[in-house]
């Protein structure tokens, strides 16, 4: 009987693993397909093979020849870096305030702020564009940095949830030790919410890195364009050069893979602690 129980257990594990492998394959396949396509000859792209017959590394060289890759890479890094730093700073401060500082109407204000999550980005794009035009920032780097700098409802919510998990005594001990609210936040609480900061930083970075709509609306000049814009322009000017497009896509993906690999451990910990995990 014991043997049968063990066998049933193994069977169940086998089914679960098979399902997981299937799901992983579904997620990975497009990327593998793009990787494979980036190494194929142009007339080979339509052929349903995963391994290119003769890997064409020259496709990658052509990316650099056809678009100012490094310039756009630099632009995107600057935009993503600034917005991420701003998000982490302002969301953690706002999260601290919503979690810990007592003030009138705190909960109402927080719910209203959360409500902004319901408004789709596409609704605000045009008003934001008009705003940018009013201040004369269209087609400037400011348009890429400033609107995202001051935090989002999601980031604030994430930080607030984390601050709430910290014991109140920690803060009270610091207050009695003579800390100002700023010192409590900076010296005592911030070191404990590093996982949350990692999560927010990675999510924000990826968001800005992959953003297409906002740069498309805002930016016209190549010198200040982002990589996603560069990718599309590549498509527009040289229709159907699929291998080069895929090579460019692969290159754009590399930094994200590196960031995720480095941050993975604290990222997972952060997701688990925040209760967002499934």
């Amino acid at each position: 009987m014991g043997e049968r129980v063990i066998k049933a257990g193994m069977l169940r594990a086998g089914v679960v693993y098979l399902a997981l492998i299937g799901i992983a394959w579904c997620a990975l396949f497009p990327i593998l397909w793009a990787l494979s396509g980036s190494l194929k000859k142009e007339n080979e792209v339509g052929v349903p093979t995963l391994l290119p017959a003769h890997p064409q590394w020259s496709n990658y060289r052509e990316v650099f020849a056809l678009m100012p890759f490094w310039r756009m890479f630099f632009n995107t890094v600057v935009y993503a870096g600034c917005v991420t730093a701003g998000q982490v700073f302002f969301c953690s401060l706002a999260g601290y305030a919503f979690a810990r500082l007592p003030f009138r109407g705190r909960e109402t204000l927080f719910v209203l702020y959360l409500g902004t999550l319901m408004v789709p980005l596409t609704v605000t794009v045009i008003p934001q564009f008009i705003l940018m035009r009013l201040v004369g920032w269209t087609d400037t780097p400011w348009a890429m940095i400033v609107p995202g700098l001051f935090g989002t409802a999601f980031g604030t919510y994430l930080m607030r949830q984390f601050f709430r998990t910290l014991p109140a005594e920690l803060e009270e001990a610091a207050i009695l030790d003579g800390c100002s609210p700023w010192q409590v936040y900076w010296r005592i609480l911030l070191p404990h919410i590093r996982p949350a900061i990692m999560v927010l930083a990675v999510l924000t970075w990826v968001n800005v890195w992959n953003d297409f709509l906002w740069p498309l609306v805002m930016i016209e000049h190549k010198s200040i364009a982002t990589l996603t814009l560069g990718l599309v322009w590549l498509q527009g000017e040289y229709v159907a050069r699929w291998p080069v497009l895929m090579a460019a896509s692969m290159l754009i993906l590399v930094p994200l893979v590196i960031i995720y690999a480095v941050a993975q451990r604290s990222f997972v910990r952060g997701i688990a602690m925040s209760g967002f995990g499934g």
Partner: protein
Amino acid sequence: MASVSFEQATRRYPGAARPALDCLDLQIGDGEFVVLVGPSGCGKTTSLRMIAGLETVDAGRIRIGGRDVTGDDPKERDVAMVFQNYALYPHMTVAQNMGFALKIAKTPRAEVRARVLDAARLLDLQPYLDRKPKDLSGGQRQRVAMGRAIVRRPQVFLMDEPLSNLDAKLRVQTRNQIAALQRRLATTTVYVTHDQVEAMTMGDRVAVLRDGVLQQYASPRELYREPVNVFVAGFIGSPAMNLLNLPIIDHSVSLGDWQIPVPRRVADSAAEVVLGIRPEHFELGGRGVEMHVDVVEELGADAYLYGRICPSDDMTGQSLVVRADGGDPPRRGGRVRLHPRTDHLHYFGTDGRRIL
């Protein structure tokens, strides 16, 4: 060092039916060790947090060293607090934890170092100065929490059940250490506990609170000898005092078939009294009322008998707890004859207040 005083201090939590602390008047002398004790929800921790400035004072005042600090920020009050869960900073070493307040106050680094070392010597913490709190035992963490308070040389120490997370043996040991340390440093200390043994053994004076109202504020000895009401009488002393509701008939009350003459002052004021007898104030053997022994609790030196008075053979008599000699205590299921020592009786009115 400084005195601390509450003047009609009141705290109401929004939505609560009664105040958490109701018009508390309490004077704590310079260098005194005062224990606030009572069951949970009695307002003792609220009082402590009001001294610290962590709790709003809705009415009345709080003074430290004669200065009105009611509206002051916690950091302006120069008090140090030891929390129940210690609240050590997990990302700092023991030394950094202890020196943090001084660092915030921009004390020169050499002085911080010297003061941390002094406190560490006092608390046997030198070997652990570079460790993080997570690498310490419960007792060590407790000492770090004490150290963090001592290093600051504050006017007042506030301690909120600092021993409740320790095991029984360590608790007794640490209790004595804290009491000794306080006497040595002579810093005014307010100590909160729900444990009446801690209150009795540590405090110069003890304030007993119940439902936000001060019941009695006196030395441990006075609390034991002359509790002002039934609540204090039952709360102080372990096992608790026997409290018996008895009618006064012919200037005496009867415990089973044993007549106890009631002093004139008591007999004149009431027809019924609550008679208080501590378990240790019974004479066993010889004359008296007969008690059926249900349970015998042997503690070594003493034994406590839990039983019922049996004037006849019915089993519905008054319950009593009685201390017996631990050498040869009566058996469970047996019967003993006993009578209370009349010089140690407490009389309370039916309203709970002490008459004599």
